[in-house]
């Protein structure tokens, strides 16, 4: 609503300040299957172009700017009551300027032309202040000029079109189902929706208007033992997605809630795992997080080169010349792609913050590491090693108030050529553990050593899924783990998982990212008992 009003109230603003290279006339068709991408609106375009022009006039060699309306809606419940109903909207402008090889950034919630011009000048001034102290040379690989383009997430029902009461009732109904289980004492359930309506522009000649919708359902069910000496929690095996209300209805069903509740109760009496080496069969509901942490983060090129050293750390995947095309990251069955194009992917977009069109590229091929995640600044750092002369389109800012930088795209483990099923993997396993759902996770600052828990665990004996286990976590070294992948499921087992709150950078920014994967088996992984 704020955006509509913004357009209405500022439609009188004149355009005509366009210093954008390449012109704005050539409209490209939208790239997404989304229903109704908004056209570039004149008011937003005027604000971003005003900021670009002011930055350019103040000496910026390259500028990008975005006006965005960021909306979030949350509903949370516990048992039979509502704990939160809230919505937020934040509208503002962010401008990034490159002056004498240094970046400056300024952001304001004030969307007058004067304020937009001031933000453009301020971004340039901040860049200049850095350049004066420490001359640096940022150079950008070329990008196509796309003119005016638009894109929208693929969804059937916009969450903002569904009454809050309906959302809350859906959650309470699920809680009721879970509480029917006599061992279940507590249930928390929640919905979190994000909608971003953004117009961004670059001095390379692209103005992109995009509508991005994301949906994050959650549920957590706790069973407490009769004597109050034990409690066990089972969280839903449902990932967030770049989809709408239809996704909630499809995944957060009474049948699923009943099953999760039964598993929470069953965990109270489950056998405590025997620590030692086990073969692990990891379902997509679990494996996506292991992919995210152990493949996603180490393949961030800025991180590998030390740019994140003071926060998240560096990467074992360095230096690039020692690992690109050389490192046996995993077994031959491991093929990983990066992409921002998948339907329903959390990181899927039309154009990134630098006006780079969404793309798809191989990162690990038959186990060999071949490429990183890149922005325009970064692509040039490794182009002589990869032969890739363009950005992979990974520039992202989590709001108008934060500077764009390299963020993780969707990264997927590709399914095997033969359509092996979960049952096939179980049948082929003599002694192992099947893990469903993501649990505790921790990994070191170079992404060597990790430990993951899960939500539900079953013992496999003689090719059959037998009793439930508990207190399971596994530890491994990243490349040892991926080289231990010895069976992989086929396309029918492939599912998208993902994170709504992936953190990186200083100041910290969140990113939402999907990871598709099939079921997979890992031989001889070190399992510990977390209760001992």
């Amino acid at each position, binding site marked *: 609503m704020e955006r509509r009003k913004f357009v209405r109230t500022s439609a009188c603003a004149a355009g005509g300040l366009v210093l954008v290279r390449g012109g704005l006339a050539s409209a490209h068709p939208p790239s997404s299957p989304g229903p109704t991408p908004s056209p570039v609106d004149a008011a937003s375009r005027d604000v971003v172009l005003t900021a670009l022009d002011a930055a350019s006039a103040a000496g910026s060699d390259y500028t990008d700017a975005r006006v965005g309306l960021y909306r979030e809606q949350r509903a949370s419940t516990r048992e039979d009551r509502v704990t939160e*109903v809230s919505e937020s909207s934040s509208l503002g402008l962010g401008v990034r300027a490159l002056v004498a090889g240094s970046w*400056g950034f*300024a952001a304001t919630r004030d969307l007058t032309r004067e304020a937009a011009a001031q933000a453009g000048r301020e*971004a340039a001034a901040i*860049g200049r202040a850095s350049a004066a102290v420490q001359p640096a040379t940022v150079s950008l690989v070329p990008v196509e000029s796309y003119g005016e383009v638009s894109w929208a997430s693929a969804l059937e029902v916009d969450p903002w079109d569904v009454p809050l009461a309906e959302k809350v009732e859906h959650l309470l109904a699920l809680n009721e189902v879970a509480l029917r289980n006599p061992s279940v004492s507590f249930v928390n359930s929640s919905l979190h929706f994000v909608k971003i309506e953004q117009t961004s522009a670059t001095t390379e000649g692209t103005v992109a208007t995009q509508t991005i919708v994301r949906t994050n359902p959650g549920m957590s069910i706790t069973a407490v033992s009769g004597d*109050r000496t034990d409690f066990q929690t089972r969280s839903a095996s449902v990932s967030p997605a770049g989809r709408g209300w239809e996704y909630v209805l499809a995944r957060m069903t009474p049948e699923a809630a009943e099953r999760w509740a039964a598993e929470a109760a069953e965990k109270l009496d489950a056998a405590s795992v025997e620590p030692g080496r086990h073969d692990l069969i990891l379902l997509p509901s679990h494996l996506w997080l292991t992919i995210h942490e152990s493949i996603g983060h180490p393949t961030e090129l800025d991180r590998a080169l030390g740019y994140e050293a003071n926060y998240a750390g560096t990467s074992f995947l360095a230096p690039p010349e020692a690992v690109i095309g050389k490192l046996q990251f995993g077994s031959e069955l491991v093929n990983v792609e990066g992409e921002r194009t998948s339907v329903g992917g959390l990181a899927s977009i039309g154009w990134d913050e630098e006006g780079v069109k969404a793309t798809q590229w191989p990162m690990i091929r038959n186990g060999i590491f071949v490429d990183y995640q890149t922005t325009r600044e970064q692509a040039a750092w490794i182009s002589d090693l990869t032969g890739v002369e363009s950005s992979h389109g990974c520039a992202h800012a989590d709001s108008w108030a934060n500077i764009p930088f390299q963020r993780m795209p969707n990264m997927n483990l590709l399914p095997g050529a033969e359509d092996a099923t979960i049952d096939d993997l179980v049948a082929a396993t003599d002694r192992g553990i099947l893990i469903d759902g993501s649990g505790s996770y921790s*990994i070191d600052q170079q992404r060597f050593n990790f430990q993951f828990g899960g939500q539900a665990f079953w013992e496999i004996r003689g090719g059959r899924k037998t009793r439930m286990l508990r207190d399971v976590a596994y530890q491994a070294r990243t490349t040892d783990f991926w080289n231990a992948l010895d069976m992989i499921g086929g396309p029918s087992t492939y599912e998208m998982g993902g994170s709504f709150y992936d953190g990186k950078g*200083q100041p910290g920014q969140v990113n939402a990212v999907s990871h598709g994967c099939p079921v997979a088996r890992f031989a001889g992984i070190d399992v510990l008992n977390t209760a001992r």
Partner: protein
Amino acid sequence: MKRRTFLTLPKDGGPVLSEQEAHHLVDRILTASGADETSVALSGTRRVNSRYAVNRITTAGESVNLIAAITARFGRRSATLSINEFDNGSLLEAVGAVGRMARLAPDDPEWMPLLGPQEYGTSGGWHESTAGLDAERRAAVAASAIEQAEAANGDITASGFMDVRAGARALGNSAGLFAYHPATSVSYSLTARTGDGTGSGWAGVGHRDWSRVDSDAMHVTAIEKAIRSRRPRSLEPGKYPVILGPEAVADLVGLLVRALDARAADEGRSAFSAPDGTKLGERVVGERVTLRSDPIAMGGAPFRVSDGFPARLTPWIENGVLRNLAYSRFWAQEKGREPISLSSSFRMEGGEGTLEDLIASTERAVLVTRLWYIRSVDPRTILHTGLTRDGTFWVENGQISHPVNNFRWNDSPLFVLRNLEGLGRPVRVTSGGSGDSMRETPPLRASEFNFSSISEAV
């Protein structure tokens, strides 16, 4: 364009949101609201930062924002909408929307009436030394770190980040409550790494007053730690005596603070649950442990920003005995107790000596200076896993003998504080949350810490 901004940019030195502006905006929203009851939480912040990595400034920026979170209540139904546009049209649209949301929300059985006017303690918190950290000053700090790194013997690269906030929080409601608090905060940290990639050192601090921070000394600490941690020797995983630096202690104790919820304890799903209720009054850790929150003493808001409940000095653990758990207003009423607000600002008392004194009195131990990637493993015992980072050493006969590899660890603050052998003097460490949680913790020595596997990471 008829869009008008309610706020002008801050005058030199003043907060983004003055008390008068806060009053005015709260009044406008309360007047416009048609709800039975309305409350408004305001946050106006100018946030500036500079970041450097591999010995060059990488990014710098600023953002200015004002957010109003409006809560409308009809009987026992309520909803919250947060906005950052304050022209009359946007404001009317927002109060209308939040009213509609609230009417759609179901009755809340845990509804509590709004608080009326409260008595608040006086809290400082605004420091010009921090508010005045402009792009040039921040760049000068970065340049100094880079210069010190380049001058050090050992091919050192420095990476760091300075994050500065200057702003105000305010709260007003239709029951007549109004509260306002301006504050500054600065977080500064840096990581120094050796050229061979085998050594890494870190230093960091969170403070409201930049003039109390010695950034050059921090640079020396990080650089020296990097050089000293180079070429670590291999140490097998296992249980070893441990010396934890103040930053590591703050991270561990912070996990315990987060578990201090009375309701979870009463419901039987907390480390502080007892078969017949909670462990209040029981000894839960070693008798030398005393842990308190005093947000006002640390320059924090004298009120809880969600509802205006007054911030107070709260002892959580005294001499090892669990003295308080946090009671929400609803849960306090259910249990016939006084409400107690949980604060993420805390101070753990200690002894007299420094970290160096603690090392000097130690026969053998692993010295851990920083923990990383801490995640819950078992809430029944507050068991967590995580890693060591940026300087881990073997201490023998009162001295740091040599650097050792990093570890993954699986342990609980409860276990560590039960195995306590020595404490040093508390110092200010990094801030948590959004820069608002100030923490003071001592270094400590414990008889045992569970290092579960080796991490090759540096």
